[in-house]
């Protein structure tokens, strides 16, 4: 076995892992940037997306339909969440209230998923076109994982351009810097918050659908992945979009290479990385210290 090709395959594996993580983390960081809320329900939203995707694919027989229906449905649910549960708490002096509320939502949402879909994992077949493997430097590599890398890359670039180049993106950046000033200038800040929360949830749902062919949709998937996403967002800097990309790649590499070279220590490595970053730069790599 050629060492270089082996490393390349590992790197590609890490990048595909990073791509899935990015879909969850980018929503989390945008929501934090706009609302200063750590959304504990994001893992449950990711799981909901996977389950909705499985059902959509089963009903329509098409993976593409799942990729469209799940984000739309879950995004709408996210907006309703924000409107009903989170908005009444914006004026609360105690910043912990949101943290607690989203944790409560995570518990309730996970239970609802269990009630609706049952305890058995749901599988989602990899679409025909993406089935199979390609040889990269004589190493077999699944096409689906290449597809994930491409999609993650495309989503990252598209979002970045959206935030930098469009008026809506400008508004989002402005609200995350100084929401009161934006409000004073006559923009409906609440609308921006609802939209961003819904968008973040939609991205997480998309991540859920994309992860489903790899790991199937199961009840514990949210509880594990939400912590990964937290680690990413904290490493990158809370509220920093670019930080979430860097964090996703770092965590993807630590997870894949850690699992290969350190086995038992793999889980701990991620948290160690996070602690090192936090101790060195409390605001994260690209974040501001509060």
């Amino acid at each position: 076995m050629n060492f270089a090709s082996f490393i390349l395959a590992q790197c590609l594996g890490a990048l595909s892992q990073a791509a899935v993580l990015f879909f969850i983390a980018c929503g989390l960081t945008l929501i934090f940037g706009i609302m200063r809320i750590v959304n504990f329900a994001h893992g449950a939203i990711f799981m909901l997306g996977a389950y909705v995707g499985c059902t959509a694919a089963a009903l329509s027989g098409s993976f593409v339909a799942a990729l469209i229906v799940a984000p739309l449905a879950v995004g709408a649910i996210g907006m309703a969440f924000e409107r009903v549960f989170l908005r009444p708490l914006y004026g609360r002096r105690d910043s912990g209230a949101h943290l607690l509320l989203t944790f409560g939502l995570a518990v309730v949402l996970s239970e609802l998923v269990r009630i609706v879909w049952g305890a058995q994992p749901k599988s989602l077949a990899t679409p025909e076109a993406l089935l199979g493997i390609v040889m990269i430097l004589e190493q077999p590599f699944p096409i689906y994982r290449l597809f994930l890398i491409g999609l993650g890359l495309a989503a990252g670039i598209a979002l970045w351009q959206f935030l930098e180049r469009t008026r809506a993106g400008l508004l989002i950046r402005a609200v995350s810097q100084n929401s009161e000033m934006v409000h004073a200038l006559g923009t409906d800040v609440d609308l921006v918050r609802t939209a961003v929360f819904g968008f973040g949830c939609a991205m997480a749902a998309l991540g859920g659908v994309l992860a489903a062919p790899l790991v199937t949709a199961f009840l514990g998937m949210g509880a594990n992945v939400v912590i990964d996403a937290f680690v990413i967002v904290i490493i990158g800097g809370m509220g920093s979009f670019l930080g979430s990309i860097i964090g996703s790649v770092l965590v993807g590499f630590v997870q894949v290479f850690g699992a290969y070279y350190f086995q038992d220590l793999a889980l701990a490595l991620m948290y160690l990385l996070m602690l090192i970053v936090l101790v060195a730069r409390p605001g994260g790599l690209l974040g501001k210290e509060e």
Partner: protein
Amino acid sequence: MSWRLALALVAGVALLVPFVVPQYSLTVIVSALIFSLFAMSLDLMVGYCRLYSFGHAAAYGLGAYCAALILTHLQVPLVIGIALAVLVTVAIAVPIAWICTRSTGVSFAMLTLAFAQLGYAMLFRFRELTGGSDGVVGIPRPPGPFGIDWFQGKTGYYYLVLACLLGSYLACRAIMRSNFGAVLAGIRENEAKTLSLGYNTRAYKTATVVLSYGVGGLAGALYAGFAGYASPELFFWLTSGHVLIMVVVGGAGTLVGPMLGALFFVFLEHQLSQVTDLWPLIFGSIFIAFVMFFPGGILGLLRRRHAAA
């Protein structure tokens, strides 16, 4: 009703409990009391410093695993094993507390979460010692010292837990009503001002976090001795979340409130899990309702009614 009278009444009733309830109910009661102690320990951070720890499972898990390993390998008497476990937990908590108190708010929550998850991960790293996902099973309760074997049976263990709970409550209450507690109140209301008055606010916060870990570790150690096993779930972040729910629903910043919250949820879980498997849904819904509409918790509701009457 004065506080002393209420305390005497509760203590009196609690002393009689083993004589009136059947043995199998005592198991639930002891678990509820241990969880009360755990919730009260978290309240020291959440209620008195507004430090929302999302990693208090670390204290519980550390206490439980230390007790489990000490009792299994060293064969020291139960009470000494538990005391040693608390000491080890406190020793480990000091650097953790020092690092975590550099931040507040969300960052504090995430740092504590990171430490707890690191502990969780370490259980799988040192599998030979901790048993990995199986945990430590068959933890003995060696008798002694001086041939004391009161805590071997369930009734005796009940009194041990009750004594720890009452003792910790009285100690924490005394600390929070002392000058130390007054400084914490100052930090909570306006940290910059308290700092400018010459108080080393970070040292105060660190001390509170260490105290909180110590009491939480005691709860964990008592749990390990009672259940006879320690499993990785004790360290997992959902444990931290659940105990935080109990604190908030009970009423943060009151010590008594979180204990009530823990009793409320443990008994509710016990009752509901017999008739329906939807209890986590009910658990979560009650929690959301309290966060949104009754931020003072159960105790806040009781007090409001008392004031209105």
